[in-house]
């Protein structure tokens, strides 16, 4: 048996570290766009802050899971802790994509305030991956499944599945950014834009599914 605290600590570190890396890059991308917008019109500072907040949520999820590992689910299986950290951390890299989408959203809103809502909806799409990561982390920590897939080293497989599949958020962010541009030009493009922007999510769902199957079956 490996020391519980040891693997848990690594998991907590991965959760905060990787998710923070993603959020940092994402918020940086949006921030660069925000700086440009504010230089044109200082009144848009508030809008810029709102959009920059979006890619920061991944970092928060990482922080949340670290706190959960260290303070709440101290009795969970050590491998589950490690896996939970991996899942949240890797999936948190989707913040890079969200940063790209938010930057486009902010640019569009700077031109035309009325599409704020639409830009928001698009910008928040690449967060799904991070939410799936968080979901798997919680399922691992709570100990819903008692099989080897949830408590042994196999739990890492679940973390890897949903975590790496979560990188699809980067692609989704790029599509969403394009869709925002299209919607800004033609508001009726919203529906079709959403369909296209949701496509890359398929792979995140595959990851989520496999992660659940690992916990369920192994």
């Amino acid at each position, binding site marked *: 048996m490996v020391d519980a605290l040891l693997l848990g600590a690594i998991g907590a570190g991965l959760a905060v570290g990787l998710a923070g890396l993603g959020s940092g890059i994402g918020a940086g991308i949006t921030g660069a766009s925000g700086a440009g917008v504010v230089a044109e019109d200082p009144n848009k500072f508030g809008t810029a802050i*709102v959009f920059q*907040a979006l890619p920061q*949520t991944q970092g*928060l*999820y990482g*922080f*949340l899971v670290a*706190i*959960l590992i260290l*303070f*709440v689910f101290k009795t969970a299986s050590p491998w589950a802790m490690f896996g939970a950290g991996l899942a949240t951390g890797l999936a948190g890299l989707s913040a890079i994509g969200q940063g790209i989408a938010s930057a486009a959203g902010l640019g569009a809103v700077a031109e035309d305030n009325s599409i704020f*809502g*639409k830009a*928001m*909806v698009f910008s*928040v*799409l690449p*967060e*799904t991956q991070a*939410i*799936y990561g*968080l*979901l798997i982390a*919680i*399922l691992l920590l*709570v100990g*819903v499944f008692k099989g080897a897939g949830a408590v042994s080293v196999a739990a890492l497989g679940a973390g890897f599945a949903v975590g790496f599949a979560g990188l699809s958020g980067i692609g989704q962010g790029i599509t969403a950014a394009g869709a925002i541009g299209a919607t800004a030009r033609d*508001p*009726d493009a*919203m*529906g079709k834009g*959403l*369909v296209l922007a*949701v496509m890359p*999510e*398929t792979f995140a*769902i*595959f990851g*989520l*599914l496999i992660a659940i199957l690992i916990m*369920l*079956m192994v």
Partner: protein
Amino acid sequence: MKPVRMKKLKAVILDEKVDNVVRQLHESGIVELCDLSEKLEDVEWKSLLSPSSHADYVRNVTTLMIKASRILDLFSNVNPKEVSVKDILNPKPIEKKKVQFNTHEEVIEYCEKVLNEISKEVDEPSEKLNELENRKSKLLQLKDQISYLKGLEFDLKDLGPGVYVYIGCGSVPKEKVNELKSELDKVTEEYIEVFTGEEFEKDNKIRVPIVFVTLKEKLESVLSTLRKFEFERYDISDVEGTPKEALQKIESELKNIESEIKSLIEKLKSLATKWENELLVVYELLSIEKERGDAYSQFGKTNRTYYIEAWVPAKDAEKAKKIIEESSEGYAFVEISEPDEPEEKIPVLLNNPKPIKPFEMLTEMYAMPKYNEVDPTLLIVPGFLLFYGIMLTDAAYGLFLTIVGLWTWKKIGKVSEGAKKLGYILTLAGMATIIMGIITGGYLGDFMYEFLNIDIYKMGLAFVNPLGASNFIKNGPIAILGFSIAVGLLHLFIGLLVGFIENIKKKNTMDAIYNQGIWILLILALVIGILCPIYPIVLAGYHVSIIILIAIAIVVIMCAIKGAKENGFMGAFLGAMDITGFLGNVLSYARLLALCLATGGLAMAVNIMAKIVGSSIPIIGIILAIIILIGGHAFNFVMNGLGAFIHSLRLHYVEFFSQFYEGGGKKFSPFKANREYTTT
């Protein structure tokens, strides 16, 4: 559930009466005028009607509008509006002026009168102000140039052409002075005298002021030589005395001008407060008249009549007919008919009962429905509120959101229609959050447990614990996850059912079966299979009812057939994968659990940090803990409040709407007088 039914209104009106008809229709605001100019290109129409252009009086109106807006600009320049936070949070509604005009002539006459009166008082000080400002900028330039001429003692009035000689001044870079002097001597055959003054720095370059005296006939060649040496010419005129004396004089004149400008601005400020509201009224009256005059360009006309087409909601059709007949005193023929144009040309007006009307905003944000499509607003309301409640799920946050919502609705909503709607939605969302917060026992996260040592889950005050066990449910997260998936299935089922019924109504039976029917079947099979697992088959250690397996097989085969019809072999293969898309839609609802936990979990993290800081640092620890608590919870509230709103919307836009809703209609925009400062 459908947008408002529309009627087409067609009217032929005698030209003398058309002005009054346009006026009354504009005041009533119940019809949308159709632009006929495109239709009139058609040969058949062309033989009957010619296109009409703007009413003649539009030109007068526009001239007056320009005049009014110029004075408004001046007012806003001298009297900039300061918007305080208090005004934003609690704005005062604008006092409306009651007006009564029957013709455009009356309006124009009235506006002319008011504008003349205002110009009489404003023109003089504003012209004076202009003059003074011009003078000021000229003096500033002079002052700038003369200040460079330090060290050159001569009378400035001598500058310029004399009887035989020309005296000029300017500056050149320091390093070029000597070269310049010799070059000038060369081109003028030494008929030139150059004086230099004290060097100065400008734009990071050391420059030297020079004054040159030369014969008039040599001036041309002198100037062209000077140009080669980066010479900057100073155009100083109407000044007397040495540079030093001149500077003093300019200073004192500038001082006088400043004080004069100040008093003029004061005067204009008082004029602005006196006239601004009246001027805004005038401007609004004129814009309304202009809109009416511009409307003429959408009509067709014959020798003595105008022909109008308009969309009108069915229930207002008779009213609109009456308005036209009465305002034309009977010199009109009106016909009301069913829409005679393709669906996408018919304007869409949503008509929902008052309690859910504000939610139309959410439908519109996606896209207006098409004329014959379902209006999904009613379907959005329960799902949106439920999802919002589950995702924010904290009674204290909910209470705060309710207060914010009520404030936005009642206070800011007084002046802004958008704020009113948003406030209403937030208020309801806040209440939903309170209910869900009580059910999940979230009051600022686990604040009660951390600081007051009350475990609500053990006391049986909360139904489910998102992070563990309660008295009622042992495994909270799994219960919520199961609930999320179940709600997701129900939500998708509703969407599918609506789409199925719509397709059947439109006689698209195949679409109804392939796009909605098979999934409805699958959901039903899942429900039956899980509730009463007959003929279970063991699959990887789990018992799965045969009903579910059969349904899955049917769905995969049907999807493959559909795919094959569209795209052949590859299509069949891709179609068989459609089931993963469905699975994705269902799993997407699992975000309800994740976000519910994210709010509660982050609130807990704030509480834990505050507690650690509060107990480990003596004395100031308590203050720091309070700062962490307030800042942390405010942050968590804003982040998750926003997140819950958008994710709730996303579940509707992406998962729900894709089952039945397309949208893409054109919004009904009535021909209506937009009155902010006036009322009739």
